[in-house]
């Protein structure tokens, strides 16, 4: 049993369950143990993971669980859940165009389906179904092609016509004369959402149980190499930490870390913005995405409408974007969902995404032996969280990419074998 194997770690945890909740209620909830430790960094580790987001934590978790690596540190410059893992709009699906992408994202989706049981943490994975809308003849044609590609890979997907979309999403406006008419869509019923904070916390707790040291407020400031070139450790704001292997999962800061290591990546850091509305009664129980107008919508369990906008055009590390993007998003939202016209927005924020020229990730060895990068997920990394960590742990453990990760190596920009997912990525890069 995968779950019971996870209970073998050196820092055995209380199991979370309805009985544990009842038991702790009797003690006024003062008996809960901390979800993960905050240890002082050791002098040396077998593997250091740079970046404590979802992808970094799952990498550490799978390294410990599947590859027997017991001496691992995750270095996070801020706090767990404070980066893009806690800033995204939590959409999960695997409906991409190319075989390579479908296999990778479907691998992740299957891991999502067992995640809460495996890590004993309720990530509130809700397979409510994801609809991608087509707003023009050309997009509808592209979407039908993608539908066939997804079906050929054995992944669930359905074509839905405007009347069916209206039945599934009653608040949508399917008038053919609006600015962005609904021509049709594809529906993946196994897609949905999850609670992003719980994913970060759950994997932090599960990795900690397997002995992984999670070190927050620890920023990497440089890489150290042996004379022969192999990585020997990282300089951090908390001193030098030796490591046999270093895996970097830094999302928006990929370019900064690569520059520190002395090579360039085909990646640009851009702001991506999102908003939530004031909470309202349940009115939409699907995730609906409109690639052409850069808006996507779902409703959280609290009742807020969660809205995602497009990326800003310019490079930035400021975690904020220009107001014309939310404005553009709201215009499309009000036209497609007229009931939102008097809805007020509660919060708006931005995260820095690492956009890649082909809208596909980079899971790769680097020019430096012992240094690995997992980055370039751009606007859609959350859906891949467990799959990304799973294949990246395998790459670090064996020093060679497995079949799922190999198409996403850095050398594709030299060979020309790009995995162009601009049509399916949901947000133009």
């Amino acid at each position: 049993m995968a779950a019971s194997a996870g209970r073998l770690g050196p820092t055995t945890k209380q199991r979370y369950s309805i009985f544990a909740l009842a038991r702790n209620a009797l003690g006024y909830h003062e008996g809960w143990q901390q979800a993960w430790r905050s240890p002082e960094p050791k002098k040396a580790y077998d593997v250091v993971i740079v970046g404590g987001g979802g992808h970094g934590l799952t990498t550490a978790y799978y390294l410990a669980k599947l590859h027997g690596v017991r001496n691992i540190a995750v270095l996070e410059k801020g706090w767990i859940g404070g980066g893009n893992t806690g800033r995204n709009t939590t959409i999960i699906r695997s409906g991409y165009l190319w075989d390579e992408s479908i296999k990778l994202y479907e691998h992740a989706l299957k891991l999502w389906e067992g995640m809460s049981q495996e890590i004993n943490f309720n990530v509130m994975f809700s397979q409510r179904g994801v609809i991608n809308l087509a707003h023009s003849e050309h997009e509808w044609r592209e979407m039908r092609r993608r539908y066939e590609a997804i079906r050929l890979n054995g992944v669930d997907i359905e074509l839905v016509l405007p009347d069916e979309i209206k039945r599934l999403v009653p608040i949508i406006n399917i008038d053919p004369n609006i600015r962005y008419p609904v021509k049709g869509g594809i529906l993946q019923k196994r897609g949905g959402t999850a609670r992003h904070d719980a994913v970060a916390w759950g994997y932090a707790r599960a990795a900690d149980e397997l002995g992984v040291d999670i070190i927050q407020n620890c920023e990497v400031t440089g890489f150290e190499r042996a004379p022969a070139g192999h990585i020997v450790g990282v300089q951090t704001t908390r001193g030098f930490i030796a490591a046999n292997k270093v895996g970097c999962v830094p999302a928006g800061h990929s370019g900064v870390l690569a520059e520190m290591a002395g090579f360039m990546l085909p990646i640009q850091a851009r702001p991506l913005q999102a908003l939530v509305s004031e909470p309202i009664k349940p009115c939409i129980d699907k995730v609906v995405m409109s690639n052409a107008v850069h808006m996507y919508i779902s409703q959280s369990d609290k009742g807020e409408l969660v809205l995602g906008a497009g990326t800003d055009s310019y490079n930035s590390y400021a975690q904020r974007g220009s107001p014309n993007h939310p404005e553009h998003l709201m215009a499309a939202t009000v036209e497609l969902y007229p009931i939102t016209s008097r809805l007020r927005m509660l919060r708006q924020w931005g995260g820095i995404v690492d956009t890649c020229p082909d809208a596909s990730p980079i899971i790769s060895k680097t020019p430096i032996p012992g240094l690995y990068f997992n980055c370039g997920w751009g606007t859609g990394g959350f859906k891949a969280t467990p799959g990304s960590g799973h294949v990246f742990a395998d790459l670090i453990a064996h020093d060679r990419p497995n079949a799922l990760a190999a198409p996403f190596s850095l050398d594709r920009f030299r060979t020309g074998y790009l995995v162009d997912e601009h049509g399916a990525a949901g947000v133009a890069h």
Partner: protein
Amino acid sequence: MQLVPCPWCGPRDDAEFHYGAEAHVARPSVPADCSDAEWEAYLYLRRNTKGPFAERWNHAHGCRRWFNVIRDTYTHEVLASYKPGEAKPDIGETDRAQKDA
């Protein structure tokens, strides 16, 4: 809103512009002689600086001309704006040639 100073039209909302990413990337002078690695560098590899960064902008909804800006990508502060062909102002931003040297 990011105000972008167009050398011809003055400071304007960034929504009027098309962004051109890193400035001063020269096209290989003899393309037929380029190796795959040189094409990769020219087509895909771009600096992704956190801090002062020389970048290209096109005033797409204005005068439609290209120009260069040095902007801090962390604070969004614009440090300089100059026309194509003009020398890059020296304000501490290391350029690609210096970096590679």
